[in-house]
Structures are given as structure tokens and as C-alpha cells.
């Protein structure tokens, strides 16, 4: 009697477990019902748009562990697909420096024409870049710069300092328009030990000072939504008067916006950083605190592929008088506002 009862209990438990498992597996899908990915525009123009001699581009980048980095790889692949004369040889992204060095060496051995490298650590991969250059393969160094100019033919990257400057200028102008005297301006930074965070904060501080303003309450989060929410919640409690808030990173910005909504505060506006599609949607809707975001756009990966193609074909950039691709190219940290957001939707990335 007890035996059968136990057996039945076991059977029921097992069935419940299986059922739960089946339900859970059914919940793993992430396919949106309809996809509307705005395609990136303005790739190659003029004579350069014509297909030239075929170029094989090797591509190596860190693991796509957050939205921005994922967008870098996605953009590189999409850009390569737009050119009929480009074959992309992309390696699996890795955050292991030694593995990335090995990948670059493999790409050199595979005989690619041009290399596009976004190093996990610029210092550590300098040697690998140098090796490629020595082998006669031009290297396009993306964003995180190598230690020595000998290790790359061209560098393309963003401008962290100017991100801060442009955010500060936008905030200052808006506040002056509203005739706010002695405003309290908050800052939600990224990881403070990273040079990029220090540059962004420096630019923000310097530009605000030019307007006679100062940075008020400041916290540093960790580029994750959760840390953004936690730090901002505390910041808002400490700052009962706030006129503007700059958040360095749109990935953590999801948490920052959530914290502002949780607090129910409407007395200030917020400016984002990086340019995720999510933030652009919020700017466009204009219903919440987000009024603008300063770009640090992963579209630079698309440009890097375009430049690699031109390097492989010995062409220069269309509108410049230079016969060659320049050795350095810094992207501009444009301010995306409600007025111009539509023209930037194509470079917004999914955070």
C-alpha cells in the first residue's frame, strides 16, 4: 500500500517536473514577431561604390558581451555583405588575450589581404598587429588603440573626451534656455578605473566649467542595467534638487531610466551616451526624462570594413584630396535629440 503510494507520488512529481521543463524550454525563444532593422546607409559613395578587385578582410574582436560590442561585430559583418568584392574572414570573439593573438596569427597565415582588429587589450595585442604589418598586411586598428603606430596602418575610433564635452554643451545650452541659475548637474559614470570613463568625465567637467557650471552629485556604475539602477536610486535620494543628469552609457541607461521612473521624479532631464536604439526610441517618444544621447557609435566597425576594402584596393577616401586612406580617423560624438533622431536610427544598436 505504502509502496504504491510512494510510486504514485514519484510518478506525479516526475510528471510535474517534466511538464515544468517542457514549459520552460518553450520560453527560451527570443524571436520577435516582426523584425524592422533599419539598414545602415551612406556606405560607399561615388567611384568607390563600384566593385573593385576582390579583398579578403580578416576580422578579430572581443567577445560580444554587451550590446555595444555585439553591435560592432554585427555591423562589421553587415558592412562586408554590402560589398560584393569583400570576403570577410571573421574569428569567434574572445576576451582571452592569448587566444586573440593566436587568432590574428591564424588570419595572417590564412593570407588575408587586410586585417581589422578590435583588440580586447590594445597593449597586449600590439605585437600581433606589428607581426601582421611586418608580413605586409595593412592593419585597421579599431577603437582600443595599439601601443605603437608601427602596429597599424590606420586607426579608427571614438572620442570619449568629446562625448563628455558634447553632453555638457547640450545640457548647458538647454539650461541657459530655461534660465536656470546655479543648476545641479548629476553624472552617472561607468567603471571609474577605465581610461575611457576618466576621459568622458574630464571632458564633461571641462566643458561645463567653460559655461560656468560644475558637476554635482556623481556616481560610477558598472555598465550594467542593474548597477545603473542601484547607483542612480541612491543618487536621486541624495540630490533632492537636480536639473540635469548625464549617464555615460546607454546599456546601464536602461537601469538609470528605471530608477528615475521608480522615484517618480520629473524635475530634471537626462542625457545618455553611446546611442542605443532603445534610448533613441525614448528620445523620439519624448515622454520620459531622456532628451538626448551623445554618440559613441558602433557604426565605426562598418567604417573600418569600408576602409579595409579601400586599403586592399589602394584607393583613398572619396571626398578627400589624399590619395590614400588617412592614418587616423576619429568619429564624431554627435548629440542625438528629438529633432534629428530619425536620421540616426540606422546607427542605433540593440543594447
Amino acid at each position, binding site marked *: 500500500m505504502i509502496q504504491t503510494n510512494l510510486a504514485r507520488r514519484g510518478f506525479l512529481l516526475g510528471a510535474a517536473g517534466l511538464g*515544468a*521543463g517542457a*514549459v*520552460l524550454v*518553450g*520560453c*527560451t*525563444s*527570443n*524571436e*520577435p*514577431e516582426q523584425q524592422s532593422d533599419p539598414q545602415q546607409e551612406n556606405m560607399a559613395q561615388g567611384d568607390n561604390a563600384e566593385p573593385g578587385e576582390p579583398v579578403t578582410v580578416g576580422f578579430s574582436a572581443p567577445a*560580444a*558581451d*554587451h*550590446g555595444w560590442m*555585439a553591435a560592432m561585430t554585427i555591423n562589421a559583418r553587415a558592412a562586408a555583405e554590402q560589398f560584393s568584392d569583400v570576403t570577410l574572414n571573421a574569428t569567434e570573439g574572445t576576451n582571452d588575450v592569448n587566444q586573440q593573438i593566436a587568432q590574428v596569427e591564424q588570419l595572417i597565415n590564412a593570407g588575408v589581404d587586410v586585417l581589422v582588429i578590435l583588440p580586447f587589450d590594445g597593449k597586449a595585442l600590439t605585437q600581433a598587429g606589428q607581426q601582421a604589418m611586418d608580413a605586409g598586411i595593412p592593419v585597421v586598428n579599431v577603437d582600443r588603440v595599439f601601443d605603437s603606430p608601427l602596429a597599424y596602418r590606420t586607426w579608427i575610433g571614438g572620442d570619449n573626451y568629446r562625448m563628455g564635452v558634447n553632453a555638457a554643451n547640450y545640457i548647458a545650452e538647454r539650461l541657459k534656455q530655461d534660465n536656470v541659475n546655479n543648476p545641479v548637474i548629476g553624472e552617472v559614470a561607468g567603471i*571609474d578605473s577605465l581610461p575611457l570613463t576618466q576621459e568622458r568625465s574630464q571632458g564633461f567637467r571641462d566643458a561645463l566649467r567653460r559655461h560656468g557650471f560644475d558637476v*554635482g*552629485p*556623481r*556616481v*560610477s556604475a*558598472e*555598465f*550594467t*542595467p*542593474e*548597477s*545603473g*539602477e*542601484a*547607483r542612480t*536610486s*541612491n*543618487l*536621486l*535620494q*541624495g*540630490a*533632492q534638487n537636480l536639473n540635469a543628469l548625464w549617464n555615460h552609457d546607454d*546599456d546601464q541607461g*536602461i*537601469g538609470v*531610466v*528605471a*530608477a528615475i*521612473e*521608480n*522615484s517618480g521624479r520629473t524635475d530634471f532631464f537626462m542625457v545618455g551616451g553611446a546611442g542605443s536604439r*532603445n534610448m533613441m526610441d525614448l528620445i523620439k517618444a519624448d515622454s520620459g526624462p531622456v532628451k538626448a544621447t551623445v554618440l559613441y557609435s558602433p557604426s565605426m566597425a562598418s567604417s573600418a570594413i569600408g576602409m579595409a576594402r579601400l586599403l586592399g584596393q589602394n584607393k583613398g577616401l572619396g571626398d578627400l584630396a589624399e590619395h590614400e586612406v588617412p592614418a587616423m580617423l576619429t568619429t564624431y560624438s554627435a548629440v542625438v535629440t528629438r529633432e534629428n533622431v530619425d536620421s540616426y536610427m540606422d546607427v542605433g544598436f*540593440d*543594447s
Partner: protein
Amino acid sequence: MTKALDTPPVASSTASALRRSLRLDVRLLGLLGVLILLCVIGIITRPETFPTQENLSTMLRLAAAIGVVSVGMTFVIIAGGIDLSVGSIVALSSVWMTTLATQSYGPFVMVLCALLVGLGCGLVNGVLISYGKVVAFIMTLAMMVSARGLAERLSDRRTQVVTETGFTEFFRASFLGIPVLVIVLALVFVVGWIVLNRTTFGRRTFAIGGNAEAARLSGINVKRHTALVYGISGLCCGIAAIMVVARTTSGASTNGLFYELDAIAAVVIGGTLLSGGRGSLIGTLIGVLIFTVLRNIFTQNNLDTDIQNIAQGAIIVAAVLLQQTTSRRRKRKPATSEPGPQPTQATGSQS
């Protein structure tokens, strides 16, 4: 309040038992003193913004997720184990409950999904530790790595924003002025306290942590019990995941980062022995609150996070030193009545 004492079935006189229980209370009081001291510092440095009802509810809301995780962790550590995978299970549950597929079934399924995923991961830990004889440290380390990996795979390393407004509205609401998240934390804590201190299950947990072999010989099904304790920890992670998603309105594989360290720190400064057999949920709760208040004060005073980390480390060390001196004093005095130092045996025989 601290039922730790009924663990070792020692035939000590009620007088000495009373004395020991009083001493344990003194330690809790000391911890409470630290918390009150921190609050006083907060009130002195920020008299207008710290002692407000709004700030109190913000702090409690931020403490909710890590508090629930710490309740589960207290069970595991009292039972002589350790769970390093809590942060990753929070990440996995938060991602699983926010996939587009899960969201399409509505808020109820989202909650259920998080709970099932958490419970499932915890049970996998528990079964492999107790029946598969994998050391708890290694098993949960493996779960920590692979659960986060699975979370990254499911989410494609994107931040999944919750569009299901019913869910966010419910969990971000307040009931009688108290945020729902805080009510959930209180419920989990009360249920946990009753289970740990007023049921056979709790008493067996203490017994297993004190001396697993003795517990087995006295007829406790140690294996099944251990598996269930890890299941509880996993379930708590599921609840915490719901809270994190409610707070940040998003599920991401970066959620719950370093929760294992925060939870273990809170449990240890709360007076639970890392070797098992003795502990208190109230101490854990005070430990969690100490860290939360500390962060709030630092942010409100606009201090850098690095100083905050130093202070946090100092508090952990001070609390453990305090514990060691009290336990040494205890060992010296009633050396005759206590059956040797049980901690060392407990860890050895646990896995």
C-alpha cells in the same frame, strides 16, 4: 531568536545554555549597533535627505534582491555548504523570464518561469552535491560559470527590456506606502525564519551542518535534505531575479553580478559560521542592511566608490575578528561541556 544552540545535543545545564544564548544576543546587538551607528552618521552628514521615508524605502528596495539571496545562502551555509552560483542563477532566471516568448504569456508565467528556473538550478546543484558527491565549492563554481553562459546564450548578450507593463506595474507599486519588493523580502524572511527555527526541517539543517555523520546516524536523510537546501537557495535566486527585473525593467546576463560575494559577506558578518552548524537569519538581514546603508551614505555624500570598497572590506574583517574573539572566549570557558570544535568535521563530511 538564535536557535543555533539546539544543534549539538549537549547535556549542558540550562544555566550555561542561557549564558551562551545571551552572549550570542550580545553579538547580534553589536551588529545592530554598527547599523545604528551608520544610520546616525547618515543623519548627521545628510540631515535633510537621509532620514526621509522615501530614502528608507529606496534603501529597503535596493536591499530586497540581495536580502532574499542571502536568506537562501544562510540555509546553505548553516547546512555546512556554500553556494557560489547564486549570482549566475539570478542572471539566468532574469533572462529566462524576460525572453519575448515568456513575456508573451503574461506576468504570471514570467514569475513562474523565474521561480522554476531558480529552483531547477538549485536542485541540480543539490542533487549533484549530495548524490553525485561533487564538492559543493566545485559544483556551485561550475554552476556559476555555466548558468551565466546559458544566460548569455539565451539573451544573445542583449539586455531584454520588459514590455509587459502588468508585471512592472505590479512589482513597482506600493501597498500601504510600502514597496511591493520590500513586502516580498519581509515575507521571504519571515517564512525563512519560521522554517529555520520552528520546524523539523530547520533543526535538521542545523544538525547536518554541525555534524553530518551524527545527523545521518540519528536517522536524518542527509542527502535528500542537502539537496533540498540547495533547492531553497535556488528558489530564493528566482525570487531575487523577479525583483531585479522589476527594479531595472530588464533581464540581462549581467544581472546579479557578484551577488555570491555580497551574500556570503552578509551571512558571515551576520554571525553564521562558514563551517556550518550555527547561524542566524536576523544577523544576515542586519548584515545586508549594513552594506545597503553604507552604499547609500557614500553616494549621498558624493564619495568615490573606492573608499566605499575599503570601508566594506574593513567592516567584514572587523565583524569576523569580533566573532573569533567571542568564539575563542566561549571555547576557553565551557571547554568541558562542548564536544570539541565541530566545524572542521562538518565541512569534511558534508560533501
